[in-house]
């Protein structure tokens, strides 16, 4: 494949590279996560490591940080051969990794978490004041602002991530690996993170950024390494490449990115008001603290319409979707499917009435991770795949064969546990199950979160096809580009209410962004 035709950066240079990995092989059972992968990172640069889900990025970085021993290949850090080292040795040598999933003790303070394992003690006791001082200094020096004496359980996700980075820096990391750091951050928090990383680069630190968001790559990185199916397919200077070229290298073919290329077809909703497939009336949902997470929201979605809900996460979107799906009790108001009140009905009754649901948390809700692909492909439909109390194995296997082929789920092994799949393929299983059956209303919550460009394109196409086929789609996404690319109408949720409901023609990032912060909502 001649995809990697960009301006190649000559590896090496005058100084020894900070990191040089060559011919790395790493298998987990039948899955070959890395196949002769290589990576070369110059000292003092921000190096983006990009690739689809399951391309082997995280594995390669775990090999570098000592979590996994490679099956083959060599690792050099600052010119020293460190192949097969342990995490302890890696930390000593200044290589630290910030994982996608935080590893913090919620009941301890920020300072206590940062110094954990390397405590500052006086007379055998933790010197809290000294720890807080050190952490505050570190925080001020890097721009990672977070109060040292606060409990971690009280922090926002963005703040918790700062604590993770501080923890790594406290251990003396000079080569910092960040695994998809922006997946959980709001746009202002992302900007803040970029500022911190730029500052660290100036201070001479080396940063490796795992991501599959190409705009991030273009914005912050100096050099990009692209991985595909466990192999390194290219290494290019960021200045000499484009998102389209990177996407091509990642996927191995041309990709239509959301919001560009083919124009969004203008929906042709007939002027005669169609009957709402989904209607929500004055819905109020209590959250765990008895406050109103959703506060009197009303809207309806017509057949053949995609209704998008934008907003900063935590403004009631999760509670709204769960209440519609039947997973959360409703305090007041009603949910109607095809004009039938289902407010008091169970999850199964709503599902039987034609409601499909792609949940935002596929690992907790959308999949039983220890169940096979085939078993997961009937979750929620198990009563349709059984006869006289017994599972109908033949039909379950048949369904798995069809969905795996139709949605290109890999590996194409129906008996593989969902746990063994990459994030993108896990999401494909959920999408296949919810869209591969008969339904009239689809709740799609963050349908492409943590999914690679190829799968995003595919899922978007599925959602558009569903609209064409006359399905009503309720889309919730933190990704404005996605909401704008797909929706016919867009609501912005803020503080449990709709701050605005706009037709697609009146919406753009600036308008939505203003409503998302609540500013316009109050003015309007």
């Amino acid at each position: 494949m001649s995809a990697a035709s960009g301006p190649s950066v000559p590896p090496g240079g005058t100084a020894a590279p900070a990191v040089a990995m060559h011919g790395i092989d790493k298998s987990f059972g039948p899955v070959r996560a890395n196949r002769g992968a290589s990576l070369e990172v110059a000292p003092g640069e921000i190096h983006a490591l990009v690739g689809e889900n399951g391309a082997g990025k995280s594995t390669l970085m775990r090999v570098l940080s000592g979590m996994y021993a490679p099956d083959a290949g060599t690792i050099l850090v600052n010119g020293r051969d460190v192949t097969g080292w342990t995490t302890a040795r890696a930390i000593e040598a200044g290589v630290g990794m910030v994982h996608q999933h935080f590893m913090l003790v919620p009941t301890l303070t920020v300072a206590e978490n940062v110094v954990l394992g390397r405590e500052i003690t006086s007379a055998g006791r933790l010197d809290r004041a000294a720890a807080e001082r050190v952490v505050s200094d570190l925080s001020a020096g890097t721009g990672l602002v977070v109060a040292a004496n606060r409990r971690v359980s009280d922090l926002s996700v963005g703040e918790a991530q700062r604590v993770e980075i501080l923890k790594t820096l406290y251990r003396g990391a000079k080569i910092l690996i960040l695994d998809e750091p922006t997946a959980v951050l709001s746009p202002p928090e992302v900007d803040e993170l970029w500022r911190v990383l730029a500052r660290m680069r100036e201070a001479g630190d080396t940063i490796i950024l795992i991501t599959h968001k190409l705009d991030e790559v273009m914005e912050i990185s100096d050099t990009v390494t692209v991985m595909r199916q466990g192999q390194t397919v290219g290494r290019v200077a960021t200045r000499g490449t484009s998102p389209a070229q990177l996407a091509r290298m990642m996927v191995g073919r041309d990709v239509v990115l959301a919001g560009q290329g083919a124009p969004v077809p203008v929906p042709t909703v007939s002027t005669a008001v169609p009957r709402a497939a989904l209607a929500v009336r004055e819905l109020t949902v209590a959250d765990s603290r008895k406050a109103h997470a959703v506060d009197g929201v009303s809207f309806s979605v017509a057949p053949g319409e995609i209704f998008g809900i934008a907003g900063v996460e935590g403004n009631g979107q999760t509670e709204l979707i769960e209440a519609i799906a039947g997973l959360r009790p409703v305090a007041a108001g009603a949910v109607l499917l095809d004009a039938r009140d289902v407010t008091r009905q169970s999850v199964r009754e709503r599902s039987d009435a034609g409601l499909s649901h792609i949940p935002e948390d596929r690992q907790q809700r959308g999949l039983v991770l220890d169940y096979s692909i085939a078993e997961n492909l009937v979750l929620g439909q198990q009563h349709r795949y059984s006869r006289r109390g017994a599972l109908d194995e033949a039909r379950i296997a048949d369904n798995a064969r069809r969905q795996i082929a139709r949605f290109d789920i890999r590996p194409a092994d129906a008996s593989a546990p969902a746990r063994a799949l990459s994030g993108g393929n896990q999401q494909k299983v959920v999408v296949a199950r919810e869209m591969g059956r008969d339904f009239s209303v689809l709740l799609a919550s963050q349908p492409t979160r943590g999914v690679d460009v190829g799968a995003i394109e595919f899922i978007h196409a599925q959602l558009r096809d569903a609209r064409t086929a006359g399905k009503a789609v309720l889309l919730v996404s933190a990704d404005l580009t996605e909401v704008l690319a797909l929706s016919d109408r867009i609501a912005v949720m803020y503080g449990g209410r709709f701050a605005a409901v706009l037709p697609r023609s009146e919406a753009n990032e600036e308008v939505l962004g203003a409503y998302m912060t609540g500013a316009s909502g109050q003015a309007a």
Partner: protein
Amino acid sequence: MTAPAATVAPTRTRRLREQFEEAVLPAVVALLIAALVGDVLIITYGQSPGAVYRLLIEGTWGNAYGLGQVLYKATTLTFTGLSVAIGLRAGLFNIGAESQLAAGGFLAGVVGTLLPPGIPSLVVLPLFIVAAAAGGGIVGGAAGVLKSKWGAHEVITTIMLNFIVLALLNYLTVAHFKVFDTLHTADIRSGTIARLSAVVPAFHGSAASLVLLLALAAAAAAWWYLFRSRAGYELRAAGLQPAAAEYGGVNVATVWWKAMLISGAVAGIGGLNFVLGYKHYYEDGFGTGAGFLGIAVALVGRNNPVGVVLAALLFGTLSQGGLAVNALVPKQMVDVLQAVVIIAVATSVPEVRGLLRSTRTRGASDA
């Protein structure tokens, strides 16, 4: 991985074989580790491991009477092991098999005393099964309802129910049902189940009865229920990931009380082994320890009914073997071995499984 068609769906037999290996091999490895630790203990005690183990084997599998005793113990342990395993598959830790077993035996014993003599066993057997299942099921189901309705943790409630139920059964037996000067009820006159010695005379004197067929049937039924039925699919999903089960239309609270009801009922049916198969009456304290040992059986059997049957045989062998080796070493030695088996299983299972998987992949890539 690149060509979807290249990965062939595994055949049914291969999957069954894999399930079998994962159920059996960890237990075997654990046994080897336990034997090794046993060597050290025996040598420290000044005996020869060979002699002690020979005695242990001879006293259990080496003669028909010993084997009969092993089978008798394994039969009860199969029921209590299945009971704990079903609970664990639903994500519930049933510590109450001890009192559920006793309650099942008690109710069967009481029903037995009410029957006139001369009714064929096969006719009244269903009645006894229902009675025993009801006895255990009420106790287990009570803990289940407490959890489903009020969120009371099943570990606490089942432990407490053990005390309450065992004391209550003791009171009822002593105050209302016992034969004078004993702690047992009157003899059952109909529906007793034949000893194994009636089929194979060599088993003469041992307690084993045809209830062991009932245990095997229970294991088969449990396997089918857990892995082949829709209810089992929902039960396991609720145990693995309650949030996903809920999303999949499963009422998790309902699964909880049903699972505890079934778990208790299975333990309760275990009471028939003593009541119908062995003594033909209910005796206070007949199954002491078998309920708790059921936890170990479920653990070693990896909550898989096939594994539970084998683990029950293992623990049956060890507890009978303890009596056999008493001449050379204290029988507590075998209690230590049981503990070592449990610890070895708890620690070695992930390792053994990892090894199994990697051998399999190597085998697959060689092919």
